[in-house]
């Protein structure tokens, strides 16, 4: 899950093998997005995004620190679905 410190760097979108991070830099929504979001139903937990993020704004869904706990729902809501497994 991407948390509130996200700065839309979008390097995560480059490394994700399943394109589950939106909006990507090619998308028109990218310019106005507050942050980027991971689709929990598509994510395969490969960790490439967390690895790449320059400011460590990505955590595994089960390991969200308390201060960012609402971000599981925020990420999922962007894709119009409930939180993933």
């Amino acid at each position, binding site marked *: 899950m991407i948390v509130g410190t996200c700065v839309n760097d979008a390097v995560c979108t480059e490394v994700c093998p399943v394109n589950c991070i939106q909006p990507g830099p090619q998308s028109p929504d990218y310019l106005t997005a507050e942050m980027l979001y991971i689709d929990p139903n598509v994510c*395969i937990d490969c960790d490439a995004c967390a690895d790449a993020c320059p400011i460590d704004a990505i955590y595994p869904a089960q390991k969200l620190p308390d201060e960012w706990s609402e971000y599981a729902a925020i990420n999922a809501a962007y894709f119009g679905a409930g939180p993933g497994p």
Partner: protein
Amino acid sequence: MATQVFTHCHYCVSLCGLVVDIDESRENVTNIAPDRNNPFSWGDFCRKGQTAAEIRNHPKRITTPMRRVGNSYIPASYEEAIKDISQRLNRIIDEQGPDAVGSYHGNPLGHNFGDTNMFSGLLAAIGTGNRFWVGSLDQNSLHVVQEQMFGCELMSVPTDIDGCDCFLLLGMDPAISKFGWIEVIPNGWNRVLAARDRGADLIVVDPRETQTTQKARTHVMVAPGQDWAFLLAVIRVIVDNGWNRQPEAVPVAGLEKFLALVAQASLDDLSRRCDVSVEQITDVARRFSHARTAACVTHTGLAHSGNGTVGEWLSQLLNIITNRMDMPGGKRYERGYVDLPRAWSMMAPTSRHQSRLRGLPTVAGFHSTAEMADEMLTPGDGQIKAMLICSGNPVVSGADGDKLDKALSGLELLVAVDLVQRESHRHAHWLIPGTHWLEREGLHLAFGSIMDKPFAQYARRCVPPLGQVREEWRFFVDLALAMKRPLFGLKGTNSVIRLSRRLAKLSGLEFLEFSPAWFEWLMVSMGRRVKLRDIKQRPHGYLYDEKRYGDLAKSLRTTSKAIECAPPILMEACQRLLGASPPAEDPEYPFYLVNHRHRESMNSWMNENPGLLQQGRGSQAELHSEDLRALDLREGDMVQVSSKTGSIELTVTAARGGRRGIISIPHGWGSRIFNAIQGSEPESWGVNRNRLISDKHLDFLSQTPLLNTTRVKVKPVSSADDANGSVMPMSLIARS
């Protein structure tokens, strides 16, 4: 209309199930995604698999045989290639004997059973003892130990992760390279983390700090090359305290002899050697032996360290004396669905041949890659005059590439079979096109026996081979026929092949023609566990049975039918290590060279893929920040790294932590990628760090060069001129 094909990736042994979208023409792949309906594997899906079509459509891909004329290559037909190569090989064999023809094959060939089997058949037809392969660079230690202990060179016992309460991992970085080596453990790292979240213990042994060590409850920062000493020390503590148990699932022989050796070793001495305190050794020993279930797992890192074979052996013994062998939550033998020793012998036929110059035996049927250059360069009876290189790049993968390149340049005939012309093929007289796994179908007859579940999947062809490219096995068979030498060295085989082709042509029934499919059918039928038809009918793969324990005892091929715990060659090697002084500090070469994997890089053949490594392409040397400071270096500075063998230049970056005195440089970089078709300037990224490795100093048993633990010195060359402020500065050296 567009369609989908279900298959699995062949890049690494995660074998991720894939769904591949094909366009209307059926010639192009439009998308590759994980097949979430594959019951065995898809969770390790990564960008290498996702961008596979970019390698299949590689802009420099060779699509016809190419013949060298002067300094360029001209296209030719397969018939011309086979005619010329067969004539030249026959002449060399007739004049100088079969050993004058050598072979080398790399990792990608091993991922296709049929192609490897037919390659073995061709080599047997030629009759050469000078066979080399990539296994001598990364897995021979395992083959030696498995043969000595279990009686078969391939008899891996996969980690039984889900019920494991204590993981002791050595020589591996599964957070980056996934959990496979010579065991197929899909999504293994995530499963380990899940076990850890349930309370399992996780102890990782690594001189470096990695993403894997950062998730461990304990990170043991062992001295490079001394894993064997650490393992022996742990075993010593376990035995001294009576924490060992009788193995329940497997008969053992020679255990008393081994325990006598253990009693001779001094714990303090071992602790000094591996630079791990007696306190920490004892703690690990207690935790590992007391855990309800546990597994000690070793991957390729051990193989590279000069004493890796002894380390590999000791890791097996640690599992045996704590009763983890073929037990739930420990290591579980999967007997698969074919006769594994037979299948293995089709990939790696045994050979009693001794190398001409060093008199060394083969390991898994092949001589050490480290011997190749000398065997080509040194005149005399049995000198190698011709080489067949298939799916390999030994100048980059092996030691002392400069010398090997020189050796290859002197050959009378060099034939390279590959997708693209790379560094090791630059002197080739013939380039023969290779296929990509997207273009192939088949069943891997050996992998089924090293999986952590009873699973089989028939890989499906997604797109036809580009242009007129023929599958490698067909080229190998045609070459043997043209040479009039019997495939597999079995008289009569060639007539059967020719007859089968005639019959297939006359009847229009393809399956009548000799092909790898014959072996698939034969081996699966003889295995009597599953039907080939049932495998083929399940595009997402077939979990054909439940896991069960206790098959290892029934499968052992030792004369005693027990696990041999004290094979003489391993006991002697260990005794030698104990008797020798620990490696002395070398003030002239104060650093140990070690290796690490980048997530999106694997070996030497995908690094130019534009879909990968988008954050930066190239290799850097990783040093502890204190070592950087001591050398007055900043991240991004250029250094010269030299050993007694060679010298390279590249930029540095700071390690996350780990030991001082090590420099980690990833393997697989620095190969030029040539454009054989257009003859334009080659591209290349990064540097070949294996130029630093000597081809003389080998692990005595595995014959693997010191890919880890070679001693080097580091000298600043120049400062980075522009500090661009990027968080991950990269060395981008695209040079001609």
